[in-house]
């Protein structure tokens, strides 16, 4: 439905949107265009001469084993964080949805990690798991596990996933809880009367109703892992050991910041950009559907 205009001014609406449009163009669109442009060139090490190389930065990227190892790490990280934090978040939300006393206290405490920056979360966990110093690291040593995430790639990847999941549960928990609480009780009671057990009621009645929330969270969590994982990894492992925790964003940062190779990092920017565009396209399709039927 298209609503009529309330005001007839010709110039005023442009003045109203101008600040946001100018900032968007300047800080968002222009840099993204520059990145795409830079990805087609190569500069010599001193940055004096720049030559057009077409898609060569991309072909080099796609034939670089380091890129694929980084892609694999990103995939493992994103899938683990998304699946684990959503599953645990949903489980806890369905527990907190019950008529318990002290529900508010549980909710507040479980929501706390949402308030922290990923990098700050990483500092807290680093203190627990610093080899020989952290209390959990000491405990692991006592029961005979050699814990040193600075040397062991598998442990390092496990650690960054653990920290991200710990932080991300809060977000999934609160969204699922809100969805559960807005669900009509009659639906669940009807299923109960039909003799469905509580587990079956949950998976066959409640879970399908939650599917818009699940889909929304799926995309939000993937985007979180792709980008916000940076803070955790920068504060904990710096992508190491030997690239074991080097997700795409971190590699892009290292290529631009440490190796000062702006063209190679620009090509990676564009690759990441394609990922985000695909994910948001999915999300917008879903928003459209909701607007129509909701």
């Amino acid at each position, binding site marked *: 439905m298209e609503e009529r205009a309330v005001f007839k001014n010709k110039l005023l609406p442009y003045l109203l949107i101008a600040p946001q449009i100018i900032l968007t163009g300047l800080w968002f*669109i222009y840099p993204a265009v520059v990145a795409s442009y830079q990805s087609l060139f190569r500069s010599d090490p001193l940055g004096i001469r720049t030559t057009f190389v077409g898609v060569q930065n991309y072909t080099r990227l796609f034939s670089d084993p380091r890129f694929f190892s980084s892609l694999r790490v990103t995939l493992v990280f994103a899938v683990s964080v998304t699946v684990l934090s959503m599953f645990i978040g949903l489980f806890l939300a369905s527990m907190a949805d019950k008529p318990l006393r002290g529900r508010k206290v549980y909710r507040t405490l479980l929501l706390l990690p949402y*308030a*922290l920056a990923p*990098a*700050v979360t990483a500092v807290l966990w680093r203190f627990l798991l610093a080899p020989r110093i952290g209390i959990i690291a000491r405990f692991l040593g006592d029961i005979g596990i050699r814990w040193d995430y600075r040397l062991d790639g598998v442990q390092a990847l496990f650690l960054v996933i653990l920290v991200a999941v*710990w932080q991300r549960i809060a977000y999934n928990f609160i969204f699922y809880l*809100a969805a559960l609480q807005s669900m009509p009780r009659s639906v669940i009671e009807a299923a109960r009367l039909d003799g469905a057990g509580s587990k079956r009621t949950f998976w066959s009645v409640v879970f399908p109703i939650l599917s818009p929330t699940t889909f929304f969270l799926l995309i939000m969590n993937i985007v979180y892992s792709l980008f916000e994982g940076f803070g955790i990894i920068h504060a904990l492992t710096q992508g190491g050991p030997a690239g074991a925790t080097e997700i795409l964003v971190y590699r892009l940062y290292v290529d631009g910041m440490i190796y000062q190779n702006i063209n190679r990092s620009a090509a990676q920017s564009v690759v990441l950009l394609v990922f985000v565009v695909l994910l948001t396209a999915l999300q917008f399709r879903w928003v459209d559907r909701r607007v129509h039927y909701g």
Partner: protein
Amino acid sequence: MDSWSRVLRREWFAYVALSLAVVVIVLPLFVAVVGSTHDSGTIGRGRMPLWFGQHAGENYVQAWTMGARYGGAGVQRLIVNSSIMAFTIAAGKVLLTVLTAYAVVFFRFPLRNFFFWTVMITVMLPLEVRMFQTYKLVSDFRLLNSFAGLTLPWIVSTTGTLLLRQHLRALSRDLLDAAKIDGAGPMRCLWSVVIPAIRPNIAALFVILFLYGWNQYLWPLLVTTRGDMETVAMGLVKMLGGPEAATEWGVVLASAVLTIIVPVCVVIFMQRYLVQAFAETEK
């Protein structure tokens, strides 16, 4: 509500599960508080007990005034900087978002949809995919190490625009028509009719955006090189710099506790707004 014991008997599984989760969530925070009361030497030798020590005073004073030895400004400075940054980002985003949503909903003008989608597109352009190019721009404008450089590139909000557009659409048009008949112009209507009507939504949006600004990490890392411009998250991680054996854990943890207080208070006292904003973003 039933009596304690009956609820407990019926829902014991939920209590056990939730309590376990709370232990896992609170443990790192608790251990950080404990650690902040021990001297760094004890911690560094791996001898920290799981109960509070005697060194809270010196750790917190050092954290507040100067930070750790190998990097990071004092928490005093970090908190001031992050407050300015978070407040400017949140207020700026809310203001521009309100203006955009107002124009898009209540006016008809050529290219209206084009401009709306231009703002929507920014959700596809996270800082991470254009960090060096945005950095270059800020440096060309000579805005490195300034609050303008820290905040200006963030004062655009896709989610905010989308949310407020929905709230404005749901607003009754009769309200505005009545104000118009009383002789109020568009800006007057915005200020005294529209904004009061959506004040709770604006508050909710502000809380979320404030936390968002407070927790920025990568951007301050890129555009600040001077200690006196550092912000909480990056300043805290900088304190871990230097040789690992020399990490002043007592001071680092005291700093962590101090910088965490602000967002934790937001979650505890503004929870209503947070939950409301969450419930809206998903729609």
